[in-house]
């Protein structure tokens, strides 16, 4: 995605902030809010981890991926996870879809659709609340205690790997963007030992690895396609890097 050609200007029609308004748009539509809530609440069940859910969102078939809106992607990924993790069977899914459509056709769905405005409920179960907060990043986080020492020093020249970043799974999950594969950069900062998504997203455990922020020049990343000189900083786990030749 990063660096890809073929996109026009940003659409800022609905999102330009007026004056010094200090609010985010929150949710454009009620169903966006619902999807957001479902994703966080089911995530808080602790059956799959953050990297698994990212993996499901990113591995949607490309024609769905590029045409789904943001929240449609989240919903589609959640649906696939629910079936994949056997919390829901395909038959149950098909049944509820049929029922929902029938209700809608017979006009029964419309009242429900005009959902009451969410009022918030401060009394929701504490365990739920803590689990959700954790998925939101209030607790947890991805840093892990480890005896691993970082292999690279700040300022050291490195090269990102090229080809198959994930050695375990064909076409597996990775957090090294395509535009930064096989490129030269400089270690900008060491960030501690973090859960390694390439393993964690496929159920191979957290396998934490040293994480660095790496500095790239725009020319090294995009050559003449970069508009002018600027720097791009990426967080890279140690297995993505090797000493520059």
């Amino acid at each position, binding site marked *: 995605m990063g660096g890809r050609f073929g996109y026009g200007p940003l659409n800022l029609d609905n999102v330009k902030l007026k004056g010094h308004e200090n609010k985010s748009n929150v949710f454009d539509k009620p169903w966006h809010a619902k999807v957001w809530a479902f994703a966080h609440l089911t995530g808080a069940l602790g059956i799959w981890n953050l990297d698994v859910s990212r993996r499901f969102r990113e591995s949607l078939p490309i024609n769905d991926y590029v045409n789904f809106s943001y929240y449609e992607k989240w919903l589609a990924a959640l649906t*696939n996870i629910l079936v*994949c993790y056997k919390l829901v069977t395909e038959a149950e899914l098909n049944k509820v879809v049929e029922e929902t459509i029938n209700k809608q056709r017979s006009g029964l769905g419309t009242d429900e659709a005009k959902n009451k405005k969410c009022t918030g409920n401060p009394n929701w179960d504490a365990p739920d609340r803590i689990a959700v907060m954790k998925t939101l990043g209030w607790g947890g986080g991805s840093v892990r205690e480890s005896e691993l020492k970082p292999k690279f020093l700040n300022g050291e020249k490195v090269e990102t790997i090229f080809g198959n970043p994930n050695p375990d799974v064909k076409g597996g999950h990775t957090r090294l963007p395509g535009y930064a594969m096989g490129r030269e950069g400089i270690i900008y900062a060491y960030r501690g030992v973090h859960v390694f998504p390439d393993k964690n997203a496929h159920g191979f*455990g957290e396998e934490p690895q040293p994480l660095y922020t790496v500095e790239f020049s725009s020319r090294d990343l995009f050559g003449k396609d970069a508009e002018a000189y600027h720097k791009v900083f990426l967080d890279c786990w140690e297995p993505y890097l090797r000493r520059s030749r």
Partner: protein
Amino acid sequence: MKNQKEIEYPDVALNHRSLPSDPELRVRAIETLLLEKKLIKTESIDAIIDLYENKIGPINGAKVIARAWIDKKFKERLLSDARSAIQELPYIGKQGYNIIAVENTKTVHNVVVCTLCSCYPWSLLGIPPSWYKSDQYRARVVREPRKVLSEFGLKLSEKIEIRVWDSTSELRYLVVPEKPKEADGLVEKELVKYITRDVMIGTALVKVS
């Protein structure tokens, strides 16, 4: 947590394609299913939405920046270890993320993106705006940040080095803008008003009118 090694991952999971084409209906179907299976509760849905609609948002980030503008020592701590600095502030709350604060100066302008998905410092800035999640922004800002920023009305001198931070890990980037001269003498509460969401993403400069 179950042993995830036992889960068989399909090459391509396509169950989502059995959902109806109208997104509202899609959501209703999944909601019915999740409630029936007792995987979620109505009250929890309400609580989460309430949290994002009413409790967290860019005001949190603005408070952090305003404090840094007023308190030099706090700013130093913010730039060296943002997570623990932010935890000193009673009105923000514990940060699970490793927040990295990046400072704009006379010669450096920072801008944040997540090209892989839409990672964003939710706890400080709330839900990201649509453009932050758009393909256009994600594809273009790493390659042509000046052109993208100019679409926001932000024309930077060629002399200013642009630094684009692509949030590929669980680190979350927060841009610390320069305090404009016009803001001198304003108290914390007033400063907060000028520190907008876009300023903290790096697609706007602080304007004190």
